[in-house]
Every structure is written in C-alpha cells, then in structure tokens.
C-alpha cells in the first residue's frame, strides 16, 4: 500500500526536477484536439508545429534560447481548451499560446489569453467573428469562411460552370459559416441555391440527406466537412448513384482522404488553403522535411501548425524579449514567407496574403486547377483571383 501512495509523489518530484532547468528555454503552448472526433486533424497540426520548432531549434532557436513546445489536448471542446490554456499559462508559464482548432474552443480561450495578457494565435479556426471581437492579443493565420468563399466563388463558376448548387455542412460554427459564405458568394455570381442542409459530427449514414439531394435538382454540391465525415459522405454519394460535381472545403486534398475514400474520390474538387503539390521551392522544402519526419506528405492542418508556430517564433524574435506587448507588436509586423505564400496581418489580427488552391482529385493525386490569393479584407477594391 505504501508503495502505491509513494508512486505518484515520486513521479511528481521527478517531473518537477525535470522541469526546473526549463528557465532558459522559450516556452510556447499549443492546444489541439488530440482525442475526439477531430483528433486526426489536430494531431496533424501538432506534427507540423513540432517540425517547425525542431527546425528552429536546429538553427539556434529564438532570442538565443531553445524553444520548448508544450502541447495540451483541448479535445475541440471549449471547457477542456480553457483548462488547457489555464494550465499552460499558470503552471508552465508559456510566453504565447497557439491553437485550439475548433472555432468554438478558440473563442472560449480568447478571454483567458486576454486576462493573462498572453499573445494567442490560431492557425485553423475560421469563424469570421473571432477577429472582430477587439481582442488585442488574438491573431489568426488562417482564412475565414467569408474570405475563402470570396476567393473561390469565381474560380468555381468559371471552372465548373454550375447553375444550381446544393450546400451541405457539418453542424457547427465552421460548417454553417462555410455553407452560408459560399452560398452568398455563389448567389452573387448568379448561381441558384437548391438546398442548404447540415449533419452532425460523427454521423455515419447520409442516405436521408442524399435522398433530399437527389430530389433537389442541383447540378453541383458544396460540402464543408473534415476528413472522416467528408470521406464517408463522398463514398455514399457515389454509392447512391448521384452524378454531380462535388466540391468541398476541409481537409480534402490529403493523401489520407484519398486513401480512405478510394475510387469515390475520383473527380471531386476541393477548395483548400494548402495542398502538398503547390508549386514553389519553399513548399518543396517543407514537403521534403515533413515527409522525412512523418512518412507522409503534409496536408492543410500540418501546414497550419507549421506556419502558426513559425509566425509566433518570428514574432518573439522580433520582440527581442518575452514581453507580451512586444510580441503583439512583433505579430503585427509579420511578413512571413510560408510554403503557401506570404502571411501578413491586418490591424484586427486577420491574416492575409497567402495562397489557396482549387484542386481536383485525379488518379489518386491532387491536380491544382487554379490558385488564388486571400486578399487583404480591409483594402478597398481588393481583387480576388490572380
């Protein structure tokens, strides 16, 4: 019995002594869903982040110190993500936070970051209102649903020639936001709306939804879904004998999506902020390093983790110290050459300037049909498309 009681105490002591010399590292906290329904994508993000930190440490770190990345599981849930943020700030004393993946989770962490004056960057959460909350510590190096919709609607109309489109989204902030944003943009280009429907995370049977889709008379269907739900849905669209152009947002243009979707993935279009065969030397280098580390090519979320950590480390370097105000100034001064374009931030902390691609899956590979740049949303007369 005594052994049982002693074991956790000893474990704590060992952990504490291991953590003690950590004063001379720069700590950055990362909150990602490592378990739960989007664990797969959260893990990809964390892998990208680890790679960025490893590369930076090999090149000397930031402020002359090594960077220590502390990863916590937020499970995409607001409550767990807030707990993770409190733990990272209070106990680990991180100088900056990155993460929380799901928009609802990120939104819950934002007030915590503000309370403790900790710079907070998300590389994934795309719900538009996050950067409009006036939180000076919050930045987003990702597209919003509206920006993506704006950038892609013309490409989709020009390349696919659709007249009447049905919209299907996963039932959360992101899925609803994306479906609405694309519906609005495509409508403004004269595309008719056949139907808008949502399904819940983890749903497996889409036949009811597809029965409605078949009866809607659409010639194309827009889908906002992540890998798991998206692949199940696409497979069932083909089984159901529906012959429509499918284009999706989410992590569609990845080798894993193609692998688990199989033949059903053939011919579908995906609007993605990142795909591993984007042209450019910077991206080739990233793909090579990432593949060497993890044995598969990076997808959208791996790139998001990689970019957000690099942006944060650049900002800390630029700040010349770990003062929160200086890091925020450093983030505002961001001009980061990513594998997918050049990231900068608006006054409200919204990233822009990076590329996004319309890809088609052919013979088990992603073909880039066209690329477009996410324009500065605050610049008047900003042009979409190249």
């Amino acid at each position, binding site marked *: 019995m005594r052994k049982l009681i002693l074991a956790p105490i000893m474990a704590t002591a060992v952990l504490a002594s291991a953590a003690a010399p950590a004063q001379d590292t720069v700590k950055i906290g990362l909150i990602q869903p*490592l*378990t*739960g*329904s989007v*664990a*797969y994508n959260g*893990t990809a993000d964390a892998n990208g982040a680890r790679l960025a930190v490893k590369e930076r440490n090999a090149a000397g770190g930031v402020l002359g110190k090594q960077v220590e990345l502390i990863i916590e599981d937020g499970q995409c849930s607001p409550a767990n993500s807030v707990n993770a943020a409190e733990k990272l700030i209070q106990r680990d004393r991180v100088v900056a936070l990155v993460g929380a993946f799901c928009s609802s989770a990120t939104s819950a962490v934002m007030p915590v970051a503000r309370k403790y004056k900790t710079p907070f960057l998300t590389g994934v959460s795309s719900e538009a209102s996050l950067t409009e909350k006036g939180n000076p510590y919050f930045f987003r190096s990702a597209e919003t649903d509206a920006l993506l919709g704006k950038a892609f609607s013309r490409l989709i109309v020009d390349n696919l020639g659709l007249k009447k489109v049905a919209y299907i989204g996963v*039932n959360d902030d992101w899925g609803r936001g994306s479906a609405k944003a694309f519906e609005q943009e495509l409508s403004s280009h004269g595309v008719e709306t056949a139907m808008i*429907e*949502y*399904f*819940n995370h*983890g749903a*497996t*049977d889409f*036949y*009811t*939804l597809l*029965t*409605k889709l078949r*009866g809607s008379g659409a010639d194309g269907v827009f889908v906002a879904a992540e*890998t*798991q739900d998206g*692949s*199940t849905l696409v*497979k069932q669209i083909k*089984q*159901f*004998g529906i012959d429509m152009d499918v284009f999706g947002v989410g992590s569609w243009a990845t080798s*894993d999506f193609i692998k*688990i979707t*199989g033949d059903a993935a053939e011919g579908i279009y995906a609007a993605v902020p990142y795909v591993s065969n984007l042209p450019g030397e910077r991206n080739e280098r990233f793909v090579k390093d990432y593949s060497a580390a993890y044995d598969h090519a990076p997808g959208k979320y791996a790139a998001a983790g990689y970019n957000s950590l690099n942006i944060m480390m650049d900002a800390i370097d630029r700040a010349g110290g770990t003062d929160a105000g200086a890091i925020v100034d450093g983030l505002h001064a961001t001009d980061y050459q990513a594998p997918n374009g050049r990231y900068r931030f608006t006054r409200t902390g919204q990233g822009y300037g990076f590329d996004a691609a319309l890809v088609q899956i052919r013979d088990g590979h992603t073909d880039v049909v066209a690329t477009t740049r996410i324009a500065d949303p605050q610049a008047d007369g900003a042009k979409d498309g190249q």
Partner: protein
Amino acid sequence: MDMLLQFVANGLVSGAFYALSALGLTLIFGLMRVVNFAHGELYMLGGVMGWLATTVLGLNFFAGLALTLAVMGACGWLVDRFLIERVRDQGEEPSILLTIGLSIFLTNTALLLVGTAPLTIEGPLPNKPVFLGPVVLTELRVFAVAACAVLILAAHLVIRHTRLGRAMRATFQDPMAARLAGINTARVYASTFALGTMLAASAGMLLGSIYSTHVSAGGLVSLKAFVVVILGGMGSFAGAIVGGLILGVAEALWGGYISTGTVDIIGFIIVILTLIFKPYGLFSTQVERA
C-alpha cells in the same frame, strides 16, 4: 411518395444497425445487471480488430469476422473474470465506475496503437447500388441487414435453446439457487459478457465495412444504444429490435422532412417520452430480481 419510400428504407437499414449495436448492451444488462458503459468501446475494438485482420493480416471478410469474434469473445471473458467479478454483488455503482474507466482505457489504448486515422474495412460485397423500384440500396447494405438478422437470431437461439442459455437464465433469476443446482455461475457470467462483447464487436466490424471506423467511434454508438435499450426495455431482445427500428425510421423521417442538422434530438425526445410514459420501456418484463 418515392422520397417517403426511400426515407423509410434508409430508416429500416440504420434501425437494423442500431438494433444490433444495442443487443450486446441489453443482453449484459438483462442477464448480469451490469450497465456496460464500455459497450461503444467494445464496438470500436471490433472494428479495429476487423481492420487489423483484413488489412494487416490480409484475411477475407468472413475469416476476419471469425477471428475478431474469437479474440473479442476471449477479451470479454477475461474482462469479466478479472475485472467485473471483483465488483459483482456490490450494487450497480461500482460496476458503472468500472466500465466507465474501462471505456477510457480502451479508447486511449487503441489511440496509442492504431492512431487517429479513419480505418476502412474491405466488405465481402461491392458497394454497388441496387434499385428496388424507386428505392436505392447497396448490395453491402442488404447483406449487412441480413447479417444483423442472422446474428440476432443466433443470439436468441443460444439463450433460449442451449444448456448454456438455460444456465444464463437460471443464474439471472436466482444466482444462489443456480449455484445450489450445480451451475458454475462464475462461468455463466463470463460467457454472458463474452457473448455481449462478441455482439458489439460483430456490429463494429460489419458497420466498419459499410461506413468506416475510427478509435473515437465508441461514444456515439453507446449513446444510440442506450436510447434503443431505454425505449425497448432494459434486457429485452424484442425491445432492442423494435426500439432500433423505431429510432432509425424516426430519425430518417425527421431528417427527411424537417432537417438533418437536428436529427440527434430524436433520440433524446424518445428517451424523455419513454421515461415519462413507460419508464420500464416498451417490452420490459419488469422482473425484479430476488
């Protein structure tokens, strides 16, 4: 009209799957009075095992299913002998805590071993569409519904018409008397849990071949299985089947005519209505244990 037929067909198919998913839960509760919160995780393990057998070992679907059933049956037996036996006859709370702990352990172990990627199991038939008038199904779905029926029937026959089944029912009615009559009750409990585990695992593998599976799939399955069991009556076979079909068709009609985004509300409405109007479920025998 065509749409209605298709909705009802969709509902019946998913209802059959719900019934099979819930069967192991209702069996273990009915015969052992153990509320098994790890049921969804046993379902998930069945899918993962099926994937290992067909993809990694390269077996065909039926050999893979046989292997999965054997391994999961052994797991169920061991879980009962080494874990549940320790809290038997101590009321319901210890076994609830135990199975919740087990579910967390199983999810995270699977997460460490196979990772978060979705897993696809190669089915025994192609997923080609089959047209029955205006209704579209796939060969694999028709097969899966038939397989559900066979598994449910097999479980029913085991319990009604074998020596083991008689021993199970005797133990449930009065464990003391069963022991006095020479029944090895420890073995009966372990067999019951093994049978429940095999039913969950076979559902996991079968549905994994139609959809796909992943290590976090258990939670949602448990949720639906509890709805079915509460509706049908804890411990009732017929209740699980009717409950599953009602849930499936109700979800399909709600999704079809109202909205697919709010379809999970149906399960909760059913649970609330059942608890208000028929708290023991549709088919409960209301037997109180001696």
